[in-house]
């Protein structure tokens, strides 16, 4: 477990020369920086344009409010004959209007002799200026006029009393309001930039890896082998550029050397066979044997080694396709609910989501054996097939039952693909890069979570919600194509990339028994379940409800939730590298869980921090904590899979782990529901934090007991 010296193995990742890696990083940073700067400039220009359009629209709103109120006041004064000074409840009415129209700053009724008679929220500095405006004539005596007073756009509506406009209604719009509207858009634009950057960097990383890292890693492998006297590798790369030409030269040189070697061997053989003195013949034979031992010439084209990171792009595309409908799915379901539903409205909305998860969990269990038989890439493609059919079916659905059936098929695809990806990572990672390999998987999930809902919501507004499922189907095909190109093995026998264990004889419930007798597995599961529970209870249930109660708009809630995903996407690669470097996976998961648990307790200090700030601190702490947990946790799981590979199929171990892991997703919402019935939201969040801390303490104790047992056994 911890402290194990990482065994450096021959992976493409470790083969990349430092210079090439630095070039890759410089290119990535250059692309990212140019992208970021251009995005900021574009967004700033866009905001300026928005400001020009939103200002007049806010004035229109003020005009509408002013027209309606002045009509009512004119009616009361002229038709009902109540003098302006005798009107009752005007200030209260103004207050009521302002409370439901946040974009209006103030309302005031001003009369010639009396000055300001009724007002609400008028800034003190303006109170003295209103009476003066009654005498000003700007040619718009009978209609409403707008002027800038003390930083406010003041709309003045004359109110005629006995044929004279001695009174006026003032409706104020603050330029600060426009800025507030723009600030809202500004935060949304930041979210937009994040989404755009994540997609761009995903593509850049994929492209740079394919074009620079993979060929140079492979070249490095050939050069390193050659420098040790092994000239058996050739590079298969067809490209009409400097790399392609250099590879041709390399292959030519190796071919030339091999030809020379064949001639050399032939000549030695001839000399040996022609020699009649057996002693000399033996000496020549010895020279020949020594040479054969020194050099390796088997003339084989080396196959480019598959890396764990190859899964990232197909998996990202799939998660992206699945997440496109996330933002509107409950609303979409509501359109299918029959007039007389069999269950409550809320239940009918949540049923397709719940059954999707159930189908995914069941598929995860079945996927274990399927991966063994078919291989990761084929299982991925089968999962894509299910997902594609599910999306098309959802697009064509006419009723609630059909919708549920197709969504369950989607769930099956989801479960199969998750298992295929985790198995792929487990099989293609090595002892020294397990956490970093897992970060490709974790990063793809959260990049999809960050980008999908935003773009899906936008597309849905333009092309309709149902059409989004067609777009998802198209993306799933792209994902399948990427998987076919990147993951498929050149020799395609069943189970080729399934990590089949030839001696695996354990079936049925036996793998469960073996895994659950391992303390490390139990402690990992405890951490995993508590992480999932935090995610589903805190982030998916409590945050939206609590922030809504605190008066935040759904956009603000979405942005705060997005922060979690952004922290994971940015932080996971760094923490995974650190985890691989220090090799203390379990310690990192304990630290991460402790951080997230303590972060959740921040809501208890709401009185000092402020409610919203406390929630924000909790989200950041949970995000940072999960950064520390996610990749190392998968790394530990891969260690366990590797440890039992001779007894249990890797995919079966992963299937069992995923099944138990997902229990946290089911526990979370239930736990949240129970807690909020008993206590306020802030306390419910803190309670989940306390549960996480208890779980991680238990997990650490179990892991330590396991380690002591291992030490005891080895010393005995």
């Amino acid at each position, binding site marked *: 477990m911890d402290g194990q010296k990482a065994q450096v193995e021959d992976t493409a990742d470790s083969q990349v020369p430092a210079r090439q890696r630095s070039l890759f990083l410089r290119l990535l940073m250059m692309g990212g920086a140019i992208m970021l700067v251009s995005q900021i400039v574009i967004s700033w220009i866009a905001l300026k*344009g928005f400001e020009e359009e*939103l200002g007049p629209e806010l004035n229109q709103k003020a005009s509408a409010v002013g027209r309606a109120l002045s009509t009512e006041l004119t009616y009361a004064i002229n038709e009902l004959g109540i003098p302006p000074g005798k009107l009752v409840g005007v200030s209260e009415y103004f207050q009521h209007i302002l409370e439901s129209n946040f974009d209006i700053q103030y309302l005031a009724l001003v009369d010639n002799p009396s000055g300001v008679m009724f007002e609400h929220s008028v800034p003190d500095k303006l109170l003295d200026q209103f009476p003066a405006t009654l005498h000003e004539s700007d040619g718009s005596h009978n209609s409403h006029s707008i002027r800038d007073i003390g930083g406010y756009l003041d709309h003045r509506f004359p109110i005629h009393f006995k044929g004279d406009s001695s009174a006026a209604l003032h409706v104020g719009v603050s330029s600060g309001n426009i800025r507030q509207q723009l600030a809202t858009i500004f935060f949304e634009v930041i979210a937009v930039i994040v989404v755009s950057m994540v997609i761009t960097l995903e593509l850049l990383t994929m492209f740079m890896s394919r074009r620079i890292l993979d060929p140079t890693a492979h070249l490095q492998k050939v050069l390193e082998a050659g420098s040790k006297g092994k000239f058996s590798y050739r590079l298969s790369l067809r490209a009409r550029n400097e790399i392609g030409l250099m590879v041709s030269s390399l292959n030519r040189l190796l071919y030339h050397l091999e030809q020379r*070697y064949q001639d050399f061997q032939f000549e030695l053989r001839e000399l040996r066979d022609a020699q009649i003195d057996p002693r000399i013949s033996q000496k020549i034979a010895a020279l020949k044997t020594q040479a054969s031992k020194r050099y390796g010439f088997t003339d084989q084209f080396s196959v480019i080694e598959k890396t764990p990171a190859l899964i990232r792009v197909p998996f990202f595309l799939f998660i992206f396709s699945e997440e496109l409908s996330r933002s509107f799915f409950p609303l979409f379901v509501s359109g299918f609910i029959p007039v007389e539903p069999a269950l409550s409205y809320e239940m009918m909305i949540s049923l397709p989501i719940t059954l999707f998860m159930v189908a995914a969990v069941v598929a995860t269990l079945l996927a274990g054996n399927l991966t063994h038989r078919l291989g990761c890439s084929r299982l991925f493609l089968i999962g894509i097939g299910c997902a594609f059919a599910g999306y098309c079916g959802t697009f064509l659905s006419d009723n609630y039952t059909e919708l549920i059936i197709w969504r369950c098929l989607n769930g099956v695809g989801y479960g199969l693909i998750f298992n295929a990806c985790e198995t792929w990572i487990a099989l293609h990672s090595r002892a020294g890069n397990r956490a970093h390999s897992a970060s490709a998987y974790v990063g793809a999930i959260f990049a999809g979570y960050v980008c999908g809902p935003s773009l899906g919501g936008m597309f849905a507004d333009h092309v309709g919600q149902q059409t989004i499922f067609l777009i998802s189907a198209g993306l799933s095909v792209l994902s399948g194509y990427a998987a076919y190109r990147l993951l498929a093995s050149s020799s395609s026998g069943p189970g080729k990339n399934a990590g089949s264990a030839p001696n695996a004889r354990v079936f049925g419930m036996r793998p469960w028994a073996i895994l659950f007798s391992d303390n490390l597995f139990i402690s990992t599961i405890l951490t995993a379940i508590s992480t999932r529970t935090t995610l589903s209870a805190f982030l998916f249930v409590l945050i939206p409800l609590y922030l809504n109660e605190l008066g935040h708009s759904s956009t603000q809630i979405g942005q705060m939730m997005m922060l979690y995903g952004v922290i994971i996407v940015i932080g996971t690669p760094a923490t995974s590298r650190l985890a691989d470097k220090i090799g203390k996976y379990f310690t990192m998961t304990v630290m991460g869980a402790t951080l997230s648990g303590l972060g959740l307790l921040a809501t208890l200090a709401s009185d000092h921090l402020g409610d919203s700030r406390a929630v924000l601190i909790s989200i950041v702490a949970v995000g940072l904590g999960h950064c520390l947990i996610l990749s190392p946790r998968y790394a530990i799981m891969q260690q366990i899979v590797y440890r039992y590979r001779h007894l249990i199929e890797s995919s079966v171990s992963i299937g069992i782990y995923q099944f138990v892991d997902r229990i946290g997703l089911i526990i979370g919402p239930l736990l949240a529901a129970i807690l909020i019935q008993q206590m306020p939201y802030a306390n419910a969040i803190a309670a989940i934090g306390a549960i996480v801390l208890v779980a991680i303490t238990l997990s650490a104790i179990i892991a330590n007991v396991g380690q002591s047992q291992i030490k005891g056994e080895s010393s005995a």
Partner: protein
Amino acid sequence: MFFGFAFRVALVLVPILVMGIAITSALSLHKFGQTFSNLLDSRFEFVTGQIRNDIETQMDLGLPLENLQITEVLEAYGLDDRQILSIEVFDESGLILHSSDSSSIGDLIPEEWISIWRLNASTGNPSWFTQETDAGVVGTPIRNNLGQDVGSLVLRYSRDYLDQKIRSQARHLLVVNSAAAGIAILIAFFSAMYLLNQVCREFKSMGEVMDTISSDRQKDISALRETGIRHPAFHRFISAILVTYKDMESTIIRARNLDEGKER
């Protein structure tokens, strides 16, 4: 046609950058549309709220919904604001009882409005919103003095105005972003070329060194000198190749010597 590695890599940056800028522009425009639409909805929500107050005041006086005197009010609001297409009052069955456009009185409202209105009534929201192809719709339920929903008031406003604003922003963004994208692409392109050129030169030199060795022109380490290649593994590899050649030569000479009896 030969395109250098640096050129090809730099070229691929172009569609990636364009895509990133296009996504940002599209999402920004979408957010603008949403904010603008919310402002419009908020304005017309206020208007419908005011008219509903008038209606409910009359109903409090005992007038049934169908006998209200509100046509003039509806027409006045319709005339006041050019963006308002129609204001209608319908009853529980969806029959239009009053309208700013008298020709629609007696018509039935679309089914969708009824379902949205009923759904909204069950949640107790003061207003409901929906979109039609050419119009935005803002509705508010009308309640009698017993708190029962007896119908709804619906205001339709032209989407042309919103679409026009979005189109104008889109044109503005297209011009500005094209310029920004052009500059970004040029910078990215030349930066990538600059970063990759050194590596490409090195690859080229490596190829030349290997060609020199394989063409038997030179079989010693001097082939590596003055090439400027700073690739340790390549140096080791070339050394190993040259040593192998040399080793084979010396082994053959030794074997020949043994064969000829010059060495024992």
